């Protein structure tokens, strides 16, 4: 699950990580009040940041032409004007796709006087199943580029899950980043806080980019997480009610939300051939084989081990809500699942939804003969595939006209 920057900063703050003072605002009035507070506190500059689950906000453009999803402001009036321009508007960035995202919240925060930008992240290192801290002096840029061009500039420190993050590790990373004196101590404490956030919140990834050395109003240097991105482990949400409440349905595809209600694992894609499959690996392979034969999958859909008649019907309805769908490929390997149960479910779903699009069904496994018979005798136009390749070729042919 993804959360917004302002929510990520809330979590980090709970674990003692320094973030710029600011408030999430859903209305222009809230934005004005927040901006007033920031300037009243002695800050010279504020920043208004659109809250969406996508990066590239600074360079993004709103659909009405307003430029920039992250804007500085020298006064409360200017900040309020930015907020007004952003709230309710649709922001298009390199990562949102051409449809963009509606901005319903802006973060109005103090804009720090930034002297240096670093990169910091905590994630799982899958190579050894250990938590990993990645830090770099190359902050504020695309870390994947740094990894490719100057990998030596990325510091990696593994954490022993039983011991947790240790103080000497914080000092080690701070030194590796070239930090000295009081600032190094502050940084070490911040690294510990970021790791603690990752561990306690059951995060899959915590990314601070940029992590900054800033000069405060008092002229002293400090280390602050100026931007934050957190992804949470879906498997652990059951034990984080507060984080569950951070879910923003507006950032999720409506069809995906609908599918999750039926325990269907559905991801919308761009193509024209819809898939309905049992098993994630087989579902991915089904998308792949459609592409192999020259067409494009409309979705990933894993009905799992169940696939009751209700789920199959729900799946068909969801698939058919996608206007780009021109054909459907049902690919089932009935292991424990009875192929005739699936076939009966398909026939019922087709009748209930009044399906007229081409439907290719490939059944294999348990009770397959009965399943194929049910399809053949249904009176419906259902194309049968013998093997996965045969079925894929048939369904691709139906959209090739």
């Amino acid at each position: 699950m993804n959360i917004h920057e302002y929510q990520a900063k809330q979590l980090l703050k709970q674990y003692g990580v320094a973030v710029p003072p600011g408030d999430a605002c859903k209305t222009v009035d809230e934005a004005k009040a927040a901006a007033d507070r920031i300037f009243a506190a002695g800050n010279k500059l504020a920043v208004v940041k659109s809250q969406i689950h996508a990066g590239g906000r600074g360079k993004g453009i709103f659909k009405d032409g307003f430029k920039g999803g992250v804007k500085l402001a020298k006064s409360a009036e200017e900040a309020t004007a930015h907020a007004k321009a952003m709230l309710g508007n649709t922001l298009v960035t390199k990562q949102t796709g051409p449809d963009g995202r509606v901005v319903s919240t802006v973060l109005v925060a103090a804009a720090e006087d930034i002297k240096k930008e670093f990169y910091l992240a905590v994630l799982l290192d899958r190579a050894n199943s250990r938590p990993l801290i990645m830090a770099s002096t190359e902050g504020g840029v695309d870390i994947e580029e740094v990894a490719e061009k100057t990998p030596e500039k990325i510091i990696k420190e593994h954490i022993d899950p039983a011991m947790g993050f240790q103080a000497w590790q914080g000092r080690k990373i701070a030194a590796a980043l070239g930090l000295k004196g009081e600032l190094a101590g502050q940084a070490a404490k911040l690294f510990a806080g970021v790791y603690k956030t990752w561990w306690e919140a059951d995060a899959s990834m915590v990314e601070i980019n940029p992590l900054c050395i800033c000069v405060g109003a008092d002229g002293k240097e400090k280390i602050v997480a100026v931007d934050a991105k957190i992804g949470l482990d879906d498997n652990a949400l059951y034990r984080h009610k507060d984080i569950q409440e951070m879910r923003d349905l507006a950032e999720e595809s409506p069809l995906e939300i609908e599918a999750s209600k039926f325990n269907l694992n559905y991801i919308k894609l761009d193509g024209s051939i819809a898939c309905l499959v049992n098993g994630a690996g087989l579902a991915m392979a089904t998308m792949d084989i459609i592409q192999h034969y020259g067409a494009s999958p409309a979705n990933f859909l894993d009905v799992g081990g169940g696939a009751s008649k209700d789920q199959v019907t729900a799946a068909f309805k969801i698939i058919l809500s996608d206007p780009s769908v021109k054909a459907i490929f049902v690919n089932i390997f009935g292991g424990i699942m009875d192929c005739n149960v699936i076939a009966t479910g398909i026939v019922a779903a087709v009748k209930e939804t009044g399906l007229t699009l081409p439907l290719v069904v490939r059944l294999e496994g348990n009770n397959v003969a009965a399943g194929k018979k049910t399809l053949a005798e249904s009176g419906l136009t259902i194309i049968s595939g013998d093997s996965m390749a045969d079925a894929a070729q048939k369904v691709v042919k139906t959209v090739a006209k």
Partner: protein
Amino acid sequence: MAILVTPQTKLLVQGITGEFGARHAKLSLDYGTQLVAGVTPGKGGQFFEHGGHKVPIFDTVADAVKQTGATASAVFVPPPFAADAILEGADAGLDLVVAITEGIPVRDMIRAKQAMAGSKTRLIGPNCPGIVTPGEGKDSHGGCRIGIAPGYIHKKGNIGVVSRSGTLTYEAVWQLTSRGVGQSTCVGIGGDPVNGTSHLDVIKLFMADPETKGIIMIGEIGGSAEEEAADWIAKHGTKPVAGFIAGATAPPGRRMGHAGAIVSGGKGTAEAKISAFKAAGIGVAATPSDMADTLLKLM
């Protein structure tokens, strides 16, 4: 003869009284698996009865092991309690724990895997379909079936199958069996980002197993386990290997069903894995329909 389990392996099922555990305990018994015990805390003293079998249930794994001599466990315990069940199995000194459960928090598995380092207990999974060593009877009856795979698709033979996926594994197995080619052992290592046993771990066992003559390896996007295995095979492999990688069409950054099936930060792409396979001389099936034929061509 085969790897990890034989038809004589004594199995216990943790979570045998749950709906999911019970259903598959019955199927394993029907297959001829030596299922000798169940473990459900609080239900010790009861029995699990099916088809003439009367399987004793115990409160603890240690008790079950002591009373029945079981050496392997299938964990069918819900996600909040599954890592704990795995560790209980390890503490009881089992040879093998096969964790079927999908949805275990990654943090729990990070801890459990670390706790088991150096232990004599091998963990397979979690989020896996389990292991099958086929038997010699009709539809491979008489073998050892741990987990949820359909028994009848298997056939006793010489091909080792290792995979992160469930139904995609069944495809490969069925292709082999339909061509009259049997399997030594089929191992599902699961779809989670932290697992107990990797592709490479299993491939090393297959390479050392006199009964296994060829290997099918099924992978998917996410992580670098397939590349690690391919690298080793290039240097030390002694038997033909063919493979398939699922997820070439998956969009980056999305979790494709399996918790571990995600391309993160540009890493873990199908493209990279397929390149690694080719560089190692591993036969790459262009589609999942070609997995068996791709291997058979190399043999």
